[in-house]
């Protein structure tokens, strides 16, 4: 599990500045209207243009998993394709480690793609005419790495993503979950600094999806890459994301940690999303811990601050005593007790 080549942290920072993307016949006019704040429907009716992304800015720090979540048609795919430069931005810029991607020549961009970023696609985007091993090795192949070296690397990667022994098969002989493992392996093989995921697991059935999420968490724990992850599933967003951006009609309504979104929704739209979410999954012991004024309590039971409430529910309910919450360095943060949890589950 701890392949040395995956653990070498080489994450990058990624930033977007006032990104606009307009599809349609007269983008200039539509862009003007979008900047002026005319609504998406009105612009479509008047000019026939779709404003898919509108004035989006963000900063992703190295090693962070940044999740963009929104309903179908909200512009998530368009945004990630703008970031990856697969479509041309109508306005705005994207920079990777401070280098402006939008200003690059075709060749420079190609080099960045070869060395610094890669992507996992919703419908896998695998090459059906290549064996699994050659799918995984594709990024290395276009870089001109010789066959023996790239196959060696691809075999290592196949082991890492749990597909050892499947190299000689063709993708269509694999199940959906396995195919996306190939997609993941293909993206990891080039050791990118930034990984883009466009709803990679939404074509999979729920059990496999959960497996894949866990797999990604495991890999990310090892490799600590910068990740931009698109999803329409809030549970997935909470599970994987360090920060979550809620996207609506091409705009970010709010960006923040799961806790921030839940406890402080900026708009009704965000509130609607968060309403159905089980708080015990999102909030950690640290979030609900009440500071204990009377020094170190004599609590015999101790939990970590980063543990979600639902994982310590049994512990809390099995005792009448307050439970101590400690941080990663063992320092005392506070205590939680039954009443806090009951308030949380029943409450606002």
């Amino acid at each position: 599990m701890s392949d040395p080549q995956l653990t070498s942290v080489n994450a990058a920072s990624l930033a977007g500045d006032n990104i606009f993307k307009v599809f349609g016949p007269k983008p200039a006019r539509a862009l003007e209207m979008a900047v002026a704040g005319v609504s998406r429907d009105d612009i479509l009716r008047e000019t026939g243009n779709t404003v898919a992304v509108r004035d989006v800015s963000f900063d992703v720090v190295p090693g962070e998993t940044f999740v963009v979540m929104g309903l179908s048609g909200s512009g998530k795919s368009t945004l990630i394709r703008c970031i990856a430069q697969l479509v041309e931005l109508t306005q705005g810029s994207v920079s990777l480690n401070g280098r402006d991607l939008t200003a690059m020549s075709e060749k420079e961009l190609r080099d960045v793609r070869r060395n610094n970023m890669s992507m996992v696609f919703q419908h896998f985007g695998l090459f059906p005419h290549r064996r699994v091993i050659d799918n995984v090795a594709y990024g290395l192949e276009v870089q001109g790495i010789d066959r023996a070296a790239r196959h060696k690397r691809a075999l290592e990667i196949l082991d890492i993503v749990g597909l050892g022994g499947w190299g000689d098969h063709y993708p269509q002989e694999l199940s959906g979950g396995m195919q996306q493992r190939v997609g993941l392996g293909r993206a990891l093989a080039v050791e990118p600094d930034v990984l883009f995921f466009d709803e990679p697991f939404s074509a999979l059935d729920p059990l496999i999806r959960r497996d894949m999420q866990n797999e990604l968490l495991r890999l990310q724990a090892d490799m600590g890459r910068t990740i931009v992850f698109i999803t329409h599933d809030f549970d997935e967003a909470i599970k994987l994301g360090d920060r979550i951006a809620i996207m609506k009609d091409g705009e970010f309504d709010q960006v923040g940690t799961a806790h921030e979104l839940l406890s402080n929704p900026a708009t009704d739209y965000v509130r609607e999303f968060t309403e159905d979410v089980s708080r015990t999954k999102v909030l950690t012991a640290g979030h609900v811990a009440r500071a204990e004024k009377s020094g170190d309590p004599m609590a015999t039971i101790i939990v970590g601050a980063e543990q979600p409430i639902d994982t310590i529910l049994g512990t809390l309910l099995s005792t009448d005593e307050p439970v101590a919450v400690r941080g990663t360095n063992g320092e005392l943060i506070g205590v939680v007790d039954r009443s806090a949890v009951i308030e949380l589950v029943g409450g606002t």
Partner: protein
Amino acid sequence: MIERVSRAPKWGIWALCVAVAVGLQVAFASSESFPAGLDHTFSDPIDDFGRWQQSARRTNVLFTGFFTPLSDMVGWALDTVESVLLWVPWYVLPAAIFVVVARTKGWVVGLIPAAVMVYPGLVGLWEVTIDTFALMIISVSIAVALGVPLGVWGALNTRVEKSIRPVLDAMQTVPAPVYFLPMLMLFGIGRVPATFATVIYALPPVVRLTTLGIREVPPAAVEASEMFGATKRQTMTRVQLPMALPTIMTGVSQTIMMALGIVVLATLLGAGGLGQEIMETLSQRRTGRGFATGLAVVAIAIVLDRLGRALAVTDRSKLPGRKVMAGAAVAIVGLTVFGLASGITEFPEVWSVKIFDPIDNGVVWIRDNLRWLTRGFNDLVVADFYVPVRDLLTETIAWPVLLWIGTFVGWRIGGVRLAVFSLSMMVAVGLIGMWNQSLDTLTQVVAAVILSVAIAVPVGVWAGRNPRVEAFLGPILDALQTIPSLVYIIPAVIFFTVGVVPGIVASVLYAIVPGIRITALGIREVPAESIEAAQLFGATRRQTMLGVRLPLAAPTIMAGINQVIMMVLAMVIISGLVGGGALGFAAVSAVKRSDLGIGFEVGFAIVAIAMILDRTTAAVADRLRPVAGH
């Protein structure tokens, strides 16, 4: 609700049409045929050019620097392929065919074409067949080498595709032998112009399907490739082309079949091979040998069809591994070396089956004993239809009347555009002096179309209603469709010798296949609900057929008739080979005498007739199509 657009002819307008026609007839009754005012305007410069190129062939840099070297190169390639195929032991070709087909279709299926390939050897036609095979290999290779890049270009550039497409469409309505003349001009006579005519004729499917295949590659795969930093070229060669390969191969297999159709016809250009063998034996009345040669062409068609289908399967996960293929390759090389070492290369003479004489005798017997039938049919077609109609059109009715009627009908059916188009095409044909020959051709075409429709529509209706009939006919029709058009004149000549009738009969044989196919399709496509509704109201079977099925299938059947007409027109020149087809006959003699000017006029007239009939019948089919609601 679905309702037919009501456009009942207004009787007043038709009465006017007739009145004008009568008026024109009276006014022009004694006039000559169409004044061919431009008779020499186009043909003379073309003749001059023809004469010029003959003298310029040795001096002008266009020829010495381009066409002659190109011609030499292709000639050399043809010679090389042919001598290699004759140099290796004869069984290597069937073995190679077996390997290619068995690779994707299993060894049982692979045995069929391999066995069929032996047939030409058995009847003593091995070398002639190899001749034709070499021509096929070179033509198809050139067509693919040109067509794939062109298709790729079209896929990458919409503007290019938009300008290529109408050219490809036009190339498919032009009867194949029309390509012979320009080739004749550029390359003289022989196998090289035949090769290029074949390349041009067979090019459209591979171009079309390459463009289609590349367009059909899922954008996700292309994006993924781009995302990994692949250059455009890397994406094309590593992702787009390989993923489009099955579609491209389908195009290649269509190209192969089209190429075969024209390669045997290319005998007109002196290309030799099986086509020439057929023509010679038929003109020498060696029917048995002609028949056996026709079967050799059919054999090649089967082999090539199977090869094409086998190539079009490219699902790699189901193919045998590299080791098996390497083993097969080694086996073939081994067989070759063994054959060469032991001197077994030529097809063993002793195996030859003498089937010609029995066939000759059989044919003579059939001809003698069926004379009452063939004679009767011949008279019916010639004396009761062809001669009176032709004379009516060319002698009795004055040409302005025909112009008027043609234009008027075009207007009623297809509006002003069709009327203007038909009128200008007719005038052009008249002006270049092809008026009477065109009407003569038209009469024969109409006869063939009437006969074809009379056979194809009832059979098609039967097949459309009865799945068992359809299942039985399916493979037969499949097989018939792969047979090159030239072969169809063999049975026609056997029964009707030469003249107008064998041409018509061959055209009918060739054209009924699509007619049956499309009619059956139309009948089968009639929604079950409509039929059930009619039955619910107590309609008899007959009423259901006449009142519901046929009207609902009418647009599709009309499309089938359009196809029949186009196929009959494609046979005009082949009819010319046996003395029929008027324009076809003129085309054949023009090519034989290298008479370029006339050849072009004839070619233009045939294309003009084809385009008028095509657009008119397509417009009729459109008008029959039901339109939803008001």
